[in-house]
């Protein structure tokens, strides 16, 4: 298997989707941010020059342009670049794309993809660091993909483009350069299928996006101490693989939910609620959440780093739970 970056795998997923279906187009070319991976998107333009658009800064208009195009037989990929900018298109995301299929009694489909980068990225501050997946998850009708690895982003990207629903692919800005093995065959990862990234019997670390990478680092260290942590990668929030969560909790009885969205009404809050309702009897100790504290993201590196989810925070929480 070849080892490639998350950014290259995303581009490969996009290219294969566009090759497979001529109605797929890309509107917006800041898919890979402004860092060293940025030029990789030119591979898409080189291969499909007629289907790549450099749009104006008009997030709301662009979002609904994509929605209208999708209702009318195309499969656009609309890129917001920075996840925070999707907030400008919130009405279009939640009150157009998310509700059209239901309000039309199943007659209208909105088969499209929104791409964006989320999370702490170094100096993004309070207007470039949002992780909008929890806010989006508060609205029915939208599929939400939060990959953690090159393999996942490629396989999930293809599934997202093929899906007949509006699907947000939300990539962590700090995952773009992370390398990993990606199968060379033509694979697709079904939306709604989580994955056990590392099996373990003592404690479940439930995470998505970059938090999976952090959880795996923590699990390595915990293993050295004799604590075997199971790392569950949700991969998509909507649809959600509840079975994989509950199965892991039933096996370990101890849970830390790790996620970069805000603590209040965040991803970790929802997962914790699901576990409390469906697997309370399996719990040997209270559920712990490691989420972003409820403060706006500051620009100062010192302050921003305080908010980051680190292996140390996970290890400390694990020690609390297993009584070390």
């Amino acid at each position, binding site marked *: 298997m070849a080892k490639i970056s998350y950014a290259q795998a995303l581009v490969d997923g996009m290219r294969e989707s566009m090759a497979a279906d001529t109605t797929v187009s890309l509107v917006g070319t800041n898919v890979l941010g402004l860092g060293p991976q940025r030029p990789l998107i030119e591979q898409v333009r080189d291969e499909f020059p007629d289907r790549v658009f450099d749009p104006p800064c008009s997030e709301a208009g662009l979002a609904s342009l994509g*929605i209208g195009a999708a209702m009318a037989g195309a499969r656009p990929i609309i890129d917001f670049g920075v996840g925070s900018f999707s907030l400008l298109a919130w009405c279009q995301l939640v009150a157009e794309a998310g509700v059209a299929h239901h309000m039309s009694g*199943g007659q209208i489909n909105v088969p499209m993809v929104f791409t964006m980068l989320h999370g702490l990225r170094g100096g993004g501050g309070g207007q470039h660091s949002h992780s909008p997946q929890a806010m989006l998850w508060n609205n029915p009708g939208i599929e939400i993909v939060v990959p953690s690895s090159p393999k996942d982003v490629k396989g999930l990207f293809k599934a997202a483009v093929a899906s007949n629903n509006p699907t947000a692919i939300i990539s962590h800005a700090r995952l773009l350069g992370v390398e990993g093995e990606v199968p060379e065959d033509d694979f697709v990862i079904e939306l709604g299928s989580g994955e056990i990234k590392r099996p373990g019997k003592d404690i479940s670390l439930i995470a998505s996006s970059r938090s999976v990478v952090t959880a795996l680092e923590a699990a390595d260290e915990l293993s050295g101490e004799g604590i075997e942590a199971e790392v569950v990668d949700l991969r998509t929030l909507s649809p959600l693989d509840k079975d994989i969560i509950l199965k892991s909790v039933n096996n370990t009885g101890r849970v830390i939910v790790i996620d970069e969205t805000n603590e209040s009404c965040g991803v970790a809050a929802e997962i914790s609620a699901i576990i409390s309702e469906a697997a309370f009897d399996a719990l040997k100790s209270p559920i712990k959440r490691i989420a972003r504290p409820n403060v706006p993201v500051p620009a100062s590196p010192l302050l921003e780093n305080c908010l980051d989810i680190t292996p140390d925070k996970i290890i400390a929480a694990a020690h609390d739970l297993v009584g070390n």
Partner: protein
Amino acid sequence: MLTKDKLLEFYRGMVTIRAFEEEVRKMHNAGLAPGLVHLYSGQEAVGVGACAALNSDDYIASHHRGHGHCIAKGSELDRLFAEIIGRRSGYGMGRGGSMHIYDPATFNLGTNGIVGGSVPLATGAALSAKLRGTGQVAVSFFGDGVLNQGILFESLNMAALWSLPVVFVCENNGYGEFTEIDDVTAGRPYAKRGEAFDIPSEKADGMDVLAVHEAVSKAVTRARNGDGPSFLIFDTYRYSGHHVGDKQEYKDDEERELWLSRDPIPKLADMLVAGKKIKQAELDELDAKIKVTVIAAANQAKKMPEPDADDLARHIYAA
């Protein structure tokens, strides 16, 4: 030169919409239609004249006062009524209601409760048509309130930039909800909003179905020939206020009478009779027939079953 058949088609369309809206008013007053209903009465010339300039597979996107566009594009009256009163056989199984009626069979991307919602949707449909090379055109209907929505400017820019086959149709009925449009809108004449993007822009009489048809036909031809978007403003009037039940204390009698004297239905009737195309008695007969058809559709809808609450989780996601 329009044929007698075409003119009668306009007449039939406008009378059908007027009769339909009177039934909706009754349904709402009887407590059958949930929420607010916004009647198209008074604006019929715009919807009918514009849709008559389109092919059946051209797209439209409409607004909250959108029953007329659905009818003009060819939706079935009983299923429209059914949706407005929340019945299972309505276009959206009773989930959409008056402001969210989608009918893909007539290439209608929906009436829309978001002020300005139709503008980028039609622009996107035009992008899709262009990318797929289908030759289809898209029309966005929107009210004067949208003249002050930012998304109008975002959409005009992209439509002009990419020369998309879209026609922007502003129905200026003088009021955004309960506020006179002139009190809240800078930049006269409003057609300048299109001109700012080098989009051919024109104002015409929205109480004259022939004027609307002519202006939209010209714009549709431009779009279909690959010459890009047009921006049209039609001055018109909403007889029933913002919604059924709006007492319209903000209007004076003089204004109301002026607009009633310009009503598009008698205007076309007078022209047809004066031109000896048809006798007034024949038009009266046609009116009566249309009324019977519309009332029958309303009664049909009232007999349709209520939605099934167990169905509510269906169609949140497409297969």
